[in-house]
């Protein structure tokens, strides 16, 4: 009885507090519904025409606001190795693992290349249609996850992942620095790009290249996160 009363006071007080806060915010927001105004985004849409990229979000993410994306990659990188730091396990035995059945293994093996292919597609066509490096990279990582779940012996080669990750990270910054030298702005688009090439796989100058690099980076980071999370579970 006592415990029940305690729970209800916590719940009640937090309910009141959050309701008060949200209602205040709500009333202010409802009185000031933002009207459509000419924003930076509209100017960027206009600029988009001479980039040779069909997906305007991609141009904004990779080129116009590419510096944010570099920071985002850095966040992901730090998080990935932080997780590695936390969850590195000393032993590597898979004693407690339940053996997955044959159908699951077969299905996973069949699906694995298809998912990888889809991931690569999403990654490379990011400048022409929906998707891009982040989404494609994560899709590839999900294929890796599938293999981890289904197969007992699947293990990512740490070395390969590390090489990919390092290569992607270095080349991202390097492309930025080349831009600094060639067109005098960090991450500047120094490759030929214009609207006439639109639709070609290599239209848009550095945009698709950077997005593929992002895809490699995100894919390897996410695979490492998945591996760290799952390996931890194998060992206790």
């Amino acid at each position, binding site marked *: 009885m006592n415990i029940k009363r305690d729970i209800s006071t*916590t*719940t009640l*007080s*937090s*309910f009141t*507090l*959050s*309701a008060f*806060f*949200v209602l205040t*915010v*709500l009333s202010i*927001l*409802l009185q000031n*519904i*933002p009207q*459509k105004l000419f*924003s*930076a*985004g*509209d100017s*960027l*849409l*206009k600029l*988009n*025409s001479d980039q040779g990229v*069909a*997906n*305007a*979000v991609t*141009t*904004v*993410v990779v080129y116009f*606001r590419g510096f*944010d*994306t570099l920071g*985002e990659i850095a*966040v*992901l990188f*730090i*998080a*990935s190795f*932080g*997780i590695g730091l*936390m*969850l590195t396990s000393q032993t590597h035995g898979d004693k407690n693992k339940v053996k997955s059945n044959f159908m699951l293994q077969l299905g996973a093996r069949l699906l694995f290349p298809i998912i990888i292919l889809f991931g690569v597609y999403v990654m490379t066509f990011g400048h022409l*249609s*929906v998707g891009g490096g*982040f989404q494609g990279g994560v899709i590839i990582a999900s294929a890796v996850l599938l293999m981890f779940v289904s197969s007992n012996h699947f293990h990512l080669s740490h070395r390969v992942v590390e090489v990919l990750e390092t290569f992607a990270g270095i080349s991202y910054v390097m492309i930025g620095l080349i831009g600094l030298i060639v067109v005098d702005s960090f991450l500047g688009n120094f490759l030929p790009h214009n609207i006439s090439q*639109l639709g070609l796989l290599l239209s848009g100058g550095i945009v698709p290249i950077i997005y593929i690099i992002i895809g490699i980076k*995100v894919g390897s980071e996410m695979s490492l*996160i998945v591996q*760290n*999370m799952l390996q*931890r579970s194998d060992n*206790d």
Partner: protein
Amino acid sequence: MIEGILEYLNQTEVIKTIVILGSMGLFFVGLFGLLSQRHIIKVFISIGIMEIAVFILFIGLSFQKGLTAPMLGDAHTSFVQMNDPIPHAMILTAIVIGMAVLALGISFAIEYYKLTGKNRLDQMNEMKH
């Protein structure tokens, strides 16, 4: 009658009102969870819900009825009459960052639980004197 309601709901102002009400409702649920729940997974779920609420609010309010997604397609060959791409790019970034922080937090929590056997925020008192 039904058509009238539908038409009423389709007005731009009404859509924006719905977006504000809905996303702030979601924000309220997240905040309530954050304040009332103590299990570490619940806390992270609450934070995730609050984040999603803010994302929905931003995307929803920057959305204009009748404009298309900001990309060229079969029917659109020039960058006009499109939604603002900057909020999309920002939220894309914010989603990835939010996930990275969440994954890191969970890994801290797992390691902490392994060492101390505590999985609730109110039990965390290693430093109380």
